């Protein structure tokens, strides 16, 4: 007892320290997990919010009259003839019916710019499938252009409408309108815009001053020259702005200023100049009402704060889609095209179907190559191969292969599969083979680890009752190693599922407008895969592809989750057999 006491003291002395160490470690762990959850939430949250816009789209439904002379040029109703029809002309005619006063090449081009002519090809298919439609009027539904869609979603343009109740006369002569109000109703808008322009002028002036000040300080003559030129440019802008802001002068509105639209019924005018009194103005007629009376008391201002120069949709196009929406012809609905279409240059028509099928076909090849070969190699190396120099060499090589950058496997595929074997490029078959090569080392290593983890006593037990080595492995070792092997294989395959780089090398980055056949022949159809599709879209210029990129990422994530769910299910199933 007396001997034990000092030992116990030593233990007690160290005890608080040990507790503190434990608490510290727990705090680290908790922090790490909190951070991880936080980042995951942020990631998924941002993808979700960004992708939302891609899951709905504005669709236009037009009554289209399929005139025989348009869609059946030979007049015999044969398929060959129907295929030569100008379906887009039919669509254009239907759209012109909505806005009968629109004429002139420029205005019509703006009108036809709110949808993509590619949509006409679906009309062609409809008619070819059902020639009875010729001569009839059908309701044809198709997506409007991505820019118009983004505008209607309020994503690209900020605007407001202000209803007015004041007497206003509008005189229309050709393209030009003269407006005159009894009160200075236009003044507040002009003043506000003036203020905006004055602010801009002040900013330029300050910039000019700053540039001049730096120019005075610098000793480098070249730099001074540059700075002075900059100051001069800014001063010129100030002068120009001040010229336009001169008191008493008409206030002119250009494409760099917000657009001021006056709307009276279906007559819409964009103001180009406002007199200093704010009572009179001139403007460009964007849309004329057929039954125009000349004078109104109920009208509205439509102020588009985003200047025309900084948006991809013109004032007139905005008028068109807004009016079509008001007439109930444009509806925002679930964007099924995202899942039923393959890639397209037009964002509103682009979908993930091609990439999704490509991914599935590619993964089928990868799974059927990598898993049997990898597991077989692992079983042989771990259970049967003699331990000698050769097997050690192979082992080291496999371990190193797992660390090789994936793009190298793409190069290998390019050199061997395409150039030497002549396999068709850009196909799921080839992609699957390259990804299988990439996945093999992971599968082999994890399978070997799983086999190693099976206690040797199990093998001894089997051999002890007279099982052959093969029987011992397949009856006892393999079932025990199966969950581990599955986990490893799934990790490898999930990696392959998200791989981009090697597939770029074998041409799977090509633009493929047709989804591969979801069947046997699909393996040799040109196609792309989800991660590459994401890559392609993320590098596209159109803003609408941003949302589609996020949506595609979401689809890929769902695919991964599904994949892992299957894996977990399989693992559970095998684990139940312990």
């Amino acid at each position, binding site marked *: 007892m007396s001997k034990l006491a000092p030992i116990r003291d030593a233990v007690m002395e160290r005890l608080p320290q040990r507790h503190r160490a434990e608490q510290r470690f727990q705090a680290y762990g908790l922090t790490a997990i909190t951070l991880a959850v936080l980042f995951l939430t942020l990631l998924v949250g941002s993808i979700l919010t960004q992708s939302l816009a891609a899951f709905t789209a504005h669709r236009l439904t037009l009554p289209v009259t399929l005139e025989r002379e348009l869609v059946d040029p030979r007049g015999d109703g044969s398929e060959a003839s129907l295929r030569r029809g100008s379906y887009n002309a039919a669509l254009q005619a239907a759209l012109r019916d909505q806005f009968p006063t629109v004429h002139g090449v420029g205005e019509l081009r703006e009108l036809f710019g709110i949808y993509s002519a590619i949509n006409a090809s679906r009309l062609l298919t409809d008619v070819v499938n059902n020639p009875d439609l010729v001569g009839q009027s059908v309701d044809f539904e198709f997506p409007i252009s991505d820019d118009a869609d983004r505008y209607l979603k309020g994503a690209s343009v900020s605007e407001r409408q202000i209803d007015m109740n004041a007497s206003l006369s509008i005189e229309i002569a050709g393209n030009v309108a003269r407006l005159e109000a009894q009160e200075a109703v236009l003044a507040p808008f002009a003043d506000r815009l003036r203020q905006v322009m004055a602010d801009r002028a002040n900013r330029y002036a300050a910039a000019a001053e700053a540039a001049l000040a730096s120019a005075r300080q610098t000793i480098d003559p070249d730099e001074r020259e540059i700075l002075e030129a900059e100051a001069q440019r800014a001063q010129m802008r100030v002068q120009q702005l001040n010229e336009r802001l001169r008191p008493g002068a008409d206030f002119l509105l250009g494409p760099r200023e917000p657009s001021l639209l006056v709307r009276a019924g279906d007559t819409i005018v964009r103001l180009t100049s406002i007199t200093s009194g704010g009572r009179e103005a001139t403007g460009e007629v964007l849309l004329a009402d057929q039954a125009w009376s000349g004078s109104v008391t109920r009208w509205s201002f439509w102020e588009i704060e985003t200047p025309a120069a900084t948006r991809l949709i013109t004032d007139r196009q905005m008028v068109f889609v807004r009016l079509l929406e008001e007439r109930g012809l444009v509806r925002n609905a679930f964007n099924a095209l995202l899942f039923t279409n393959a890639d397209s240059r037009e964002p509103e028509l682009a979908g993930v179907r091609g990439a999704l099928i490509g991914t599935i076909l590619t993964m089928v090849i990868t799974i059927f190559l990598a898993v049997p070969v990898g597991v077989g190699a692992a079983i042989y190396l771990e259970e049967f191969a003699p331990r000698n120099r050769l097997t050690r060499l192979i082992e080291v090589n496999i371990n190193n292969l797992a660390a090789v950058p994936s793009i190298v496997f793409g190069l290998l595929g390019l050199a061997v599969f395409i150039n030497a074997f002549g396999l068709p490029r850009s196909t799921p078959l080839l992609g699957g083979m390259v990804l299988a090569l990439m996945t093999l080392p992971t599968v082999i290593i994890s399978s070997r680890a799983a086999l190693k983890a099976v206690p040797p006593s199990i093998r001894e*037990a089997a051999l002890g009752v*007279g099982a052959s080595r093969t029987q011992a492995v397949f009856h006892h070792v393999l079932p025990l190693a199966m969950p581990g092997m599955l986990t490893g294989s799934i990790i490898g395959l999930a990696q392959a599922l998200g791989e981009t780089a090697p597939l770029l090398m074998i041409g799977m980055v090509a633009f493929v407008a047709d989804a591969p056949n979801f069947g046997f022949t699909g393996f040799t159809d040109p196609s792309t895969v989800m991660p590459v599709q994401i890559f392609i879209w993320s590098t596209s210029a159109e803003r609408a592809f941003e949302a589609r990129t996020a949506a595609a990422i979401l689809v890929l994530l769902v695919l991964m989750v599904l994949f892992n769910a299957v894996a977990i299910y399989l693992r559970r199933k095998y684990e139940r057999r312990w």
Partner: protein
Amino acid sequence: MTAYEKLQAGASVRQETLYHPVEGSYTTKVATKNVTVHYGDKSALNGVSIEIPACTVTSFIGPSGCGKSTFLRSINRMNDTIDNARVSGSILIDGEEVNDRNVDPVVLRARVGMVFQKPNPFPKTIYENVAYGPRIHGLAADKDQLDAIVETSLRKAGLWDEVADRLDQPGTSLSGGQQQRLVIARAIAVNPEVILMDEPCSALDPIATARIEELIDELRENYTLIIVTHSMAQAARVSQMTAFFHLGSLVEYGPTEEIFTNPRDQRTQDYITGRFG
């Protein structure tokens, strides 16, 4: 000749080589000459020569690490599975060289069953554990026969009463002692001629030990048993022959009575009187 036929043939041989107590003569079942085992560079067994009679119980005793398990494993070539183990010398079973190229280790291990030092049931059902051997050797023609083999084996191992109503539960869910009896049942289910038992009672309570010892005594009628044990009392109780190993060598071998009452070697004397080991 299928494994089953060989076993059948083996069984008939066994009947002829039975111990005849009346005549007091033994037929040699296992004979080794100069068996040496190396693990890598390290020698674990040097030049063991022994003749083990049929239908008797022979116990191997000796201090820990002296090579008892190693020797036991050489007899059914379990050392083949250890990468760095090398076995030399000659081991004959019924006059047949075990290490011969023509001998299939599968057939050998069906004839020479083994119970390992640590109980190692398969992570499968109790039924599967016992049925596995008979099944792979084709010893049962149908399910009923297999059921019968399983039941007899479990009965012989003294486990039937405890597991009869839960044959479909995992063998690994049994207690340590039950597991040990399960692996004994598994070994005897294949109906081997020789059974090697490496400390079969190390995890058992006295009651279970007594039952196993009873079993060993019963098995002696038809089988040749070699057991490794650390219990002098057990060796004295169950075995007719005893071999004492020390530092990889066979020091003394003879009828159990003689070894325990009149050891010739000082080391044996010291060991059985508990002076070392």
